[in-house]
């Protein structure tokens, strides 16, 4: 919380010596004793889970880089060598490859949680914006990393995505050639992608530090969404440690079990079989798709019939997140008390899933096989093209239309005066017991 006073008292001589020179122990102690709203639910554990995801990706990545060869002639075989000959290399590589997917599972939940509880609203705009920066860096890092195994999907993914740059009028073509280091994706591209793939995670780490700094300055949001008044702080907050370390720890372990099921029992389920075919610049795979976590944005890209327009829409779909704090006009943070917006939010989640599904389909394919339909402008209505377009329309309408208007029009439910209040919905509360006593019940 803001204005949290340090309660750290250095005990030993060494601690005292260090505290006046580099108060790093004080920093850690203050972090652990940070007063945290006591009503955070399991949706709030994904921040800790994401920290572990980032550390895991960096740690496994450093060791993979010791064995990987960023050369078009050797890259594919060097990845397979890691899986065959390097001690425990299969584990490190599968953790890294599936870890990327797990990272995105966690980050999407984390973002939707922020959206639902209004964690982007004042005074937390910077936390949200820094989070969007992290998300954008994550997508970039994941894309660069997917190129490294130098399989067919790596190569053609890199080809298609770098070509997006070429859509920019005037400067597109020279920038594209500069980015690739040549007229086509080749060794120069692989080398620089490897370098950047190694660099960006540390940039992410830096932005995560800023994200946490902003969090501790503005204070944690909570499911009720109200700011905790100073005089309620003693009643409504608990120290981060041990309360949230153990809660986050438990959630993390459940998450790791799901992670382990993928790593050990279906390590390639989230990947694409074609990426085990070495890159061949003379042959495009029949059906190229990005990794699942990119699919919604890939769908938006394809929904627009114009090349440059598609690129703008795709980057716009991420860019809109940055201005989200100023699109929401509601006075209320948490959608728990916004019944109308809650429905639009649930539709938004479904639309996101639909976009992801559409991104993996061929645009001309029928959504409902065999159902008769008619041609609308440039395609059958019963096609993924039009389903994608409708979903894209909702995606943007959600931010630019629904959010500003519903915020102004809807009547929110009564908001509790403190976060302890909704807890007191039991018999004690109804009989008018003193809140301070009731709080002690488990």
């Amino acid at each position, binding site marked *: 919380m803001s204005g949290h006073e340090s*309660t750290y008292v250095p005990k030993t001589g060494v601690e005292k010596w260090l505290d006046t020179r580099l108060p790093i122990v004080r920093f850690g102690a203050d972090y652990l*004793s940070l*007063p945290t709203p*006591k009503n955070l639910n399991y949706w709030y554990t994904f921040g800790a889970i994401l920290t572990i995801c980032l550390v*895991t990706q960096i*740690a*496994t990545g450093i*060791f993979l880089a*010791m*064995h990987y060869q960023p050369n078009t002639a050797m890259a594919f075989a060097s990845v397979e*060598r890691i899986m*065959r*000959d*390097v*001690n*425990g*290399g299969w*584990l*490190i590589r599968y953790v890294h490859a599936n870890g990327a997917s797990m990272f995105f599972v966690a980050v999407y939940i984390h973002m939707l949680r922020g959206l639902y509880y209004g964690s982007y609203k004042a005074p937390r705009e910077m936390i949200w914006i820094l989070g969007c920066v992290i998300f954008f860096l994550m997508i970039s890092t994941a894309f660069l990393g997917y190129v490294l195994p130098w399989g067919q999907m790596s190569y053609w993914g890199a080809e298609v995505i770098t070509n997006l740059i070429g859509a920019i009028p005037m400067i597109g073509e020279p920038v594209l050639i500069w980015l690739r280091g040549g007229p086509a994706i080749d060794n120069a591209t692989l080398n620089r992608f490897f370098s950047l793939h190694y660099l960006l995670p540390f940039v992410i780490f830096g932005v995560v530090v800023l994200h946490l700094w902003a969090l501790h300055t503005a204070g944690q949001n909570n499911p009720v969404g109200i700011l905790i008044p100073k005089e309620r702080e*003693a*009643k*409504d*907050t*608990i*120290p981060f440690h041990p309360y949230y370390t*153990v809660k986050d*720890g438990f959630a993390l372990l459940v998450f790791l079990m799901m992670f382990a099921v993928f790593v050990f029992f279906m390590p390639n389920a989230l990947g694409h079989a074609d990426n085990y075919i070495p890159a061949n610049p003379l042959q495009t795979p029949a059906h190229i798709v990005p990794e699942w976590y990119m699919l919604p944005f890939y769908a938006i890209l394809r929904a627009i019939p114009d090349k440059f327009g598609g690129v703008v829409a795709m980057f716009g779909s991420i860019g809109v997140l940055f201005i989200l704090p100023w699109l929401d006009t509601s006075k209320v943070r948490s959608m728990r008390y916004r019944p109308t917006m809650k429905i639009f939010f649930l539709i938004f989640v479904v639309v996101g899933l639909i976009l992801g599904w559409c991104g993996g389909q061929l645009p001309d394919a029928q959504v409902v096989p065999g159902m008769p339909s008619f041609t609308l402008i440039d395609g059958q209505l019963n096609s993924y093209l039009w389903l994608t377009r409708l979903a894209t329309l909702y995606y943007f309408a959600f931010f630019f239309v629904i959010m500003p208007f519903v915020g102004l029009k809807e009547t929110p439910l009564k908001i509790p005066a403190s976060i302890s209040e909704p807890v007191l919905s039991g018999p004690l509360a109804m009989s008018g017991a003193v809140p*301070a006593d009731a*709080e*002690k019940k488990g």
Partner: protein
Amino acid sequence: MAESVVTNEHPEGDATRRDFIHIAAGAAAVGAGVMMVWPLVNSMNPAADTLALSTVEFDTSKVAEGMQIVITWQGKPVFVRNRTAAELTRVIADNDASDLKERQTDQERTKVGHEPMLIVIGSCTHLGCIPTFGSGDYGGWFCPCHGSHYDASGRIRKGPAPKNLVVPNYEFTAGSTIRIG
């Protein structure tokens, strides 16, 4: 702070079980940490393809008397030296020399029936430079980096190197062919 929401008193006798659970959770966390770190550390050990190249075969009859052939074993140079009778006489005479830092007879450094053939790893035991044959004070190798003198048995006689040139594990498999490693 948070005292008011947290009950600090615990019934007597409950404390032991409570502590046990927390200690068990902490111990499991430490165990998990080790389990995650070990594969990473272990991945830096030699990989299976590196280990598969850990033996090398060589026909020593290719080495003429008084000559030396350098072969590679595990990425390191191995001197295969067919010593002359004069060199052999000199190193055997030096078996009891007082300036031997690491006392070894020449016979201990060769195989019975193949005494002229000396097989040593060609890297100075001081800091790993490759010694050259023919210079030095003892009719053997001399390391130009820091001035270590070895005799024709590869034994250190003068200079900073602490040990004799290492004789790798090897055996004569068929006639004059050796297998190192």
